């Protein structure tokens, strides 16, 4: 395709236009504000679909047609540079889709509506920024700025313990990202010494390709491999976001306290930023170190899978259960990444997308239920049941819930199955033991979901539950795209697999060079 397109700029800045419009509207026109946000997010989604249609799946790497490049700070060779490839495209589409649904599910928010939607659209724009940036500095700026709206969205509109959750989330992520910052600046200064780059640069593509394998650095008189040292730094930065096992403790708090729409964005999109960071930055820039640490990543991924599932099983709060199931499912993504094979990587990226849709469904469903019951206990702290017999009371809701649950469990025919199968195909070639234990994790996954379902949906209808009304039209409307997505991509995943195949293959072959 010839010519040039500013489509990425439009997608990135469209939500910011929305922020401006919302800010200019008077505070009491809540309906207008809601519709503005909705229309804005729908336009953004439409633009991302246009992007998908125009995307050429056969070109490896960044697509020239969509590239945007403007100099920003010439002294540091920092550019405003955007691009899209097969790995970021599914994430961009996922983000814009989920944001439409989140605006719809935030319809019932009544506290400071104007500020809420302004912050929400701001958040959306920063997330796009992370997925589009080709300049490390720009990436970092978006990565950090994203925390500010998130902090307020959790802190103001969250549950009872919202402040603690917001602060913990903020500090944790900030801690990880400053380590990444050191790595980023260090890379900038060593890049000029590299003959194949020749100048100080933050350009992710120029830095990629394993150009820093021979460097070493000196700390307290000890020589350490530059690549390994900063791979670990960046690993911590991204791992906190994913979250990988020892760094996961912020997640249950943030997810449980956040309002529904924000939980959806958090689980559906923000967690993927961590794994996206591996795919875009850590792996391409330090391929040798990635291969070196692959075993460790695989084991951490495995801990995530099993530990997350066991934690989920122990929860009595349904939202916390879903939150821990995210830990477990992101573990599969880590396993797929650690495999560094074509199937594993493809599976990982597909799982990023599929987990985005299935977990978003789960969180939305929990949110719908919460709006009726105002609690989330499967079993209350005093030992009595929180829900019972929902199946008889809420038939439509139950059917949607079953679809979401099976999708997240990885039942064949639904989306989760394909990505998990690919991941297992990939990982089995390298780590047999881990595969076997991870399969066990899958089993626990099925167990806690079914057990939760049994406790909530079957049995006697509790008196409390008799007043609950079934899903209304708005709720069915915003659930339906996700239902379609999990079913369609469960049977026919090619629309996503095809666009990412070439880009992922590129990365795998780069890693293979160092294997």
């Amino acid at each position, binding site marked *: 395709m010839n010519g040039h397109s500013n489509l990425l700029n439009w997608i990135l800045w469209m939500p910011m236009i929305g922020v401006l419009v919302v800010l200019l509207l008077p505070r009491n026109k809540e309906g207008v504000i809601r519709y503005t946000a909705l229309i804005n997010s729908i336009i953004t989604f439409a633009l991302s679909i246009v992007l998908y249609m125009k995307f050429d799946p056969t070109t490896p790497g960044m697509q020239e047609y969509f590239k945007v490049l403007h100099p920003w700070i010439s002294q540091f060779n920092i550019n405003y540079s955007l691009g899209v490839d097969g790995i970021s495209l599914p994430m961009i589409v996922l983000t814009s889709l989920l944001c439409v649904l989140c605006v719809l599910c935030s319809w019932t928010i009544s506290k400071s509506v104007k500020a809420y939607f302004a912050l929400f659209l701001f958040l959306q724009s920063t997330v796009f920024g992370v997925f589009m940036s080709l300049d490390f500095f720009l990436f970092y700026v978006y990565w950090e700025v994203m925390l500010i709206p998130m902090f307020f969205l959790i802190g103001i509109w969250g549950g009872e313990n919202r402040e603690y959750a917001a602060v913990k989330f*903020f500090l944790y992520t900030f801690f990880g990202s400053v380590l990444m910052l050191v790595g980023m600046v260090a890379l900038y200064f060593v890049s000029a010494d590299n003959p194949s780059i020749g100048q100080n640069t933050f350009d992710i593509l120029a830095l990629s390709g394993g150009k820093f394998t021979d460097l070493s650095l000196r700390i307290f008189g000890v020589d350490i491999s530059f690549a390994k040292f900063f791979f670990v730094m960046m690993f911590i930065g991204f791992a906190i976001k994913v979250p990988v096992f020892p760094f996961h403790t912020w997640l249950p708090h943030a997810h449980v306290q956040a309002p529904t729409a924000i939980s959806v964005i958090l689980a559906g999109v923000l967690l993927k930023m961590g794994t996206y960071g591996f795919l875009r930055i850590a792996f391409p820039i330090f391929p040798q170190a990635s291969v070196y640490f692959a075993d460790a990543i695989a084991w951490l991924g495995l801990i995530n899978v099993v530990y997350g599932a066991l934690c989920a099983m122990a929860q009595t709060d349904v939202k916390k259960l879903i939150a821990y199931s995210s830990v477990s499912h992101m573990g599969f993504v880590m396993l797929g990444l650690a495999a560094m094979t074509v199937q594993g990587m493809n599976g990982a990226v597909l799982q990023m997308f599929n987990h985005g849709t299935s977990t978003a469904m789960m969180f939305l469903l929990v949110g719908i239920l919460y709006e009726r019951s105002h609690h989330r206990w499967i079993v209350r702290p005093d030992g009595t049941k929180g829900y019972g017999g929902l199946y008889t009371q809420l038939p439509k809701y139950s059917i949607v819930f079953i679809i979401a649950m099976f999708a997240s469990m990885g039942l064949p025919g639904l989306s989760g199955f394909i990505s998990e199968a690919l991941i297992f195909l990939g990982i089995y070639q390298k780590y047999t033991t881990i595969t076997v234990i991870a399969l066990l994790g899958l089993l626990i996954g099925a167990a806690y979901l079914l057990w939760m379902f049994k406790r909530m949906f079957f049995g006697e209808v509790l008196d409390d539950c008799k007043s609950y009304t079934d899903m209304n039209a708005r709720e069915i409307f915003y659930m339906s795209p996700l239902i379609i997505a999990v079913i369609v991509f469960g049977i026919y995943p090619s629309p996503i697999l095809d666009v990412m195949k070439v880009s992922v293959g590129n990365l795998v072959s780069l890693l293979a060079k160092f294997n």
Partner: protein
Amino acid sequence: MALNYLASISRYVPELLSVVIMVGLIFIEACYDREEKKKPFFYLAAFFGLTFVFVNLAADLSKPATMIFTGSMTIDPFSTLSKMLMVLGTMGAIYLSKESKDIYDNLKSEFAIMAVGVMIGGMILASANNLLMVYIGIETLSILSYALASFKKNEERSSEAGLKYSLYGGISSGIMLFGMSHIFGVFGSIQFADIIAGLNGLSTAQLAVLLPSFIMFFAGIGYKIACVPFHMWAPDVYEGSPLPVTTFFSIVPKVAGLAILLRVTMTFFGQEGALQVTWVGALSVISALTMTVGNVSAIGQRSVKRMLAYSSISHAGMMMMGVVVINELGTRSILFYAITYLFMTLVAFYVTSFVADKYGNDHFERFSGLIKRYPLMAIMMTVVMFSLAGMPPLSGFVAKFNILGALLSEKHYMLALIAVLNSVVSLYYYMKIIRLMVLKDVESMEPIIGFGVMNQSIILVLTVPVLALGLFWSGIMRLTEGASIFLGP
């Protein structure tokens, strides 16, 4: 090339002007009646005069660097830019003192006069090019500061602050003088240029003997910057002094101290060798400690003023890291940091001051629910707090990024890590204010008198650079790039 006396004076106009302003202000003050509270002409004269000095300095920025008064002072873009920052800081503090209730009405004009005096000391220090000028600069700066610290005459804490400040100050300048006299004894000259020439001829053993005197020399400077281990006076002085004085102390003496530290480091330790290694090693440890101690002490504070004071110690530590690298990038990053720090500190102290005036204390809880009453002020404060912690896309981040860049360009990986981890710690206590302002419910809806239209607009104007310099910092980078240190012809 050293200019002759008459020519020297032409480059010395800003300092002379400041002296004229100071004396003029004393006269104007004397013309007012004792009971007169407002003194409009006094402030008009002060701001007009200082603006004039600022413009004068700005015009000086493009002129070539030169030595004046037979080489005892250097006028280079670096010193000029530092002086501009000091003038701005002084103006900011004087305006705050005019509005603040923390300072007695009848002492407000005295504050302005003394502040200009301290500023003159700082200006001398920023240009000092021989040991004597360093000493004169530091003493001018200090003696007036002792008086400022004990400004709340009726309060014990303030007198204590003044006493402590002068005792510590006296001891540290004594130590510094001792170190200087030793240096003079070895080289037979107080001129920096002669000392550098002498340094090159010394053997390693001789240098090792000389090093303690440099460390003693450093004590005097370190005391002004309040870096560990010379920071003991800082908390009490910051706490005991009235808020405008604290604001002033956390800007002007710090900028002056950093300017001279940078100049001394660049001139004496610019060449590689044993001396440089030791000096850099000492400075690395001191800067890392300063940062960490400042930050860790800030966490537990209940008073916002104390928190800001401690955090200013840690910011000084951060700026010192730019000295460690001894290169252009370091100089430029310190200047950038100082510019952004000036605006951030002013906004933070302004807001704190007006809130404290309302309630009589500045505990964190006083900020609760500020966003419901004064949304604009709460947003500005939030911006500044995030910026102080180093969140992009605000200027505080860019400043930190520059320091990090300087550190990593010289491969100081450990220092860089310490610096960023410290910013995580600082985020914790800055966020405490944000959390209270935005997430908590409001205590009372009574209006805060300080937040009039005028003051709100001033705070808004001061916040604009914090936002703008985070996104468009190319221009400022060019400015600071030009402002390199003149090491002699």
